[in-house]
């Protein structure tokens, strides 16, 4: 039986330090990133793996390791911003080599995790990530996608959605915020052929756990794109990370699916979808857009876009059924 929330809660309720990331860190109240980390590490722990963690520079990194303190009870390395995948490639290879040289027992079960934000993944770290996947390192790369450079105060990234208000692509009198579309990172990763790629949301823990479990069991690189609301710069209440995540899934904004060696599977198909506006409206980052005179037109365009993308996913799911690349 796959791991589930009840199981994990019971296992770790009295042993919180065993999860790997403990209290005392300085992330904003309501931040989704530590939930993403804990969901990932709990599954690894539960299944008997020893997690080793690499972080890209970002919110999660600066808030959890302020010297002389650390919130990590598992081995942790931070190198720089753009190179977490390359750094972990080195760690993972070292483990392989040290086993070969007889320095580490053969049966030692490591789980190598990278946690990186969207800046470190979609933008500056894309090359490093691509190299890691192409070379086939057995690493689980978990993206916590808060759709912008939130650590430096809400700047636009390749992941920032159209119309969002950021400090480097602000909604102005002439330009309506970010005009480009968000990069489709899962497709980019899935294009590496031998890789397990999936989206995940903290609002659906069991789906999240199942994907981490699958990644752990996969004999190659894995990539989990976890939706990670930034309550601070998305301008939502501290308590909203979960509800916004849920809306993202229910409005087709953040479909839950996976691409396993080329085979698409939509892992959650809501019976009824909500209109995209329900996802946009509660978030302050879209407020300037929504108050523009041409707001309706832009929202309609975005609605069409998410609809088309959903249709495309279903087609791909149908077309690739059972057709593993390798």
């Amino acid at each position: 039986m796959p791991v589930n929330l009840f199981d994990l809660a019971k296992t770790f309720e009295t042993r919180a330090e065993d999860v790997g990331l403990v209290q005392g860190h300085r992330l904003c109240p309501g931040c989704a990133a530590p939930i993403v980390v804990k969901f990932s590490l709990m599954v690894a722990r539960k299944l008997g793996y020893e997690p080793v963690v690499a972080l890209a520079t970002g919110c999660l990194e600066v808030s959890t390791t302020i010297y002389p303190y650390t919130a990590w009870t598992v081995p942790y390395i931070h190198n720089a911003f753009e190179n977490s995948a390359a750094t972990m490639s080195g760690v993972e290879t070292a483990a392989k080599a040290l086993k070969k040289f007889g320095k580490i027992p053969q049966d030692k079960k490591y789980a190598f995790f990278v946690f990186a934000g969207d800046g470190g993944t979609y933008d500056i770290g894309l090359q490093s990530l691509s190299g890691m996947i192409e070379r086939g390192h057995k690493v689980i790369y978990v993206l916590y996608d808060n759709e912008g450079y939130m650590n430096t105060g809400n700047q636009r990234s390749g992941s920032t959605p159209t119309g969002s208000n950021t400090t480097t692509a602000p909604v102005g009198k002439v330009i309506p915020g970010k005009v480009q579309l968000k990069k489709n990172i899962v497709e980019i990763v899935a294009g590496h052929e031998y890789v397990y790629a999936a989206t995940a949301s903290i609002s659906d823990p069991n789906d999240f756990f199942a994907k981490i479990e699958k990644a752990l069991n996969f004999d190659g690189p894995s990539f989990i794109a976890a939706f990670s609301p930034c309550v601070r710069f998305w301008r939502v209440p501290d308590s909203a990370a979960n509800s916004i995540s849920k809306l993202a899934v229910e409005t087709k904004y953040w479909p839950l699916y996976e691409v396993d060696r080329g085979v698409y599977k939509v892992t959650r198909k809501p019976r009824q979808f909500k209109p995209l506006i329900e996802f946009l409206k509660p978030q302050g980052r879209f407020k300037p857009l929504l108050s523009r005179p041409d707001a309706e037109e832009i929202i309609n365009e975005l609605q069409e876009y998410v609809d088309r993308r959903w249709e495309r996913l279903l087609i791909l799911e149908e077309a690739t059924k059972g057709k593993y690349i390798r």
Partner: protein
Amino acid sequence: MYNIDLKKAKAMTGAEAVANAMRQIEPHVVAAYPITPQTPIVEYFAKFVADGVVRTEMIPVESEHSAMSAVVGAAAAGARAMTATSANGLALMHEVVYIAASSRLPIVMPVVNRALSGPINIHCDHSDAMAERDSGWVQFFAESNQEAYDLTILALKLAENENVRLPVMVNLDGFILSHGVEPVELLPDEVVKEFVGEPNVMYPLLDTEKPVTYGPLDLYDYYFEHKRQQVEAMENVKKVFPKVAEEFQKISGRKYDFVEPYKLEDAEYVMVALGSTNSTIKYVVDWMREEGFKVGALKIWMFRPFPKFQVQQYLNGRKGVIVLDRSASFGAEAPLYEAVKSALYNVTIRPQMGSYVYGLGGRDILPEHIRSAFEDAISGNLIVDEQRYLGLRE
């Protein structure tokens, strides 16, 4: 100074010599990216891996930035890890070169010196190494292929010493050494294996029983102290290196030091330089001595930490000191000249000094050029801080 036993020596390029040092060290992990003129090192080593001559795991990374990043990860994990690069590759690594040093990871990296872009050029100069001189790495410069081989082995032992724990660059001149064939005496494999021994691993990331945090956020309350510790580690190099050199002499018969004096006993005019040009300088010294000129040379083997004391000892009281630089520092003195001049600030009898920049982008340096610089000194025509050029069309 050493003599190579030609019966035991084999003709090989610097790249092959360095690759053989790496083979004998047999690091757990090598991560590298090809760049001219470093490429043959990686090619030779990849062949050793492919043929099962070494058990090393090789990571054929997608850039030098990732090469250094992976090596940092592997070294932190508890592995002996190496890479090699040149010029733009080293510049691309730059950010992580600093991180490797501040993380106190004993990584050894041969650097095949090549001019930095732009304009793009693939030939030898020292602009690549000089751009890293404040990165916190120990920097050796090899004169010959034999030295490149020896220093690579010696560097590992120095880097891993518990009072040092710093990364080391072994610089060898691009093409001149990397692709030039010379006789090289390789030590027996088992002798090298015994010399380098088991790696001295401290705080391995892969020890899940004792989890450690590498690379924390270090703010104004501790960063400064950590930098001070790095300064201290560099100072320790000066204490540890002579011991490592002595151990190396025992297995090889070859003696290394911070600097190498050449015919300095009665020399009035001394030329100071890095790398392979020292061979040409020695040739000119011999040539001019035959004519009765009291000239000599001082080779700088270790550029970082800078052997100030030895430089003072050898140059105090000379009539003239000529410093040759294979890189320029735009808007300031050339790097080696600056270091030597600074060292001579507090000697009792300061020599006349001259700065000569030569060989940028692989421009040939001829015995006549070196002789002309010596002649400037002998004729009393050295002007302190006047930067002159050898082999340049004005």
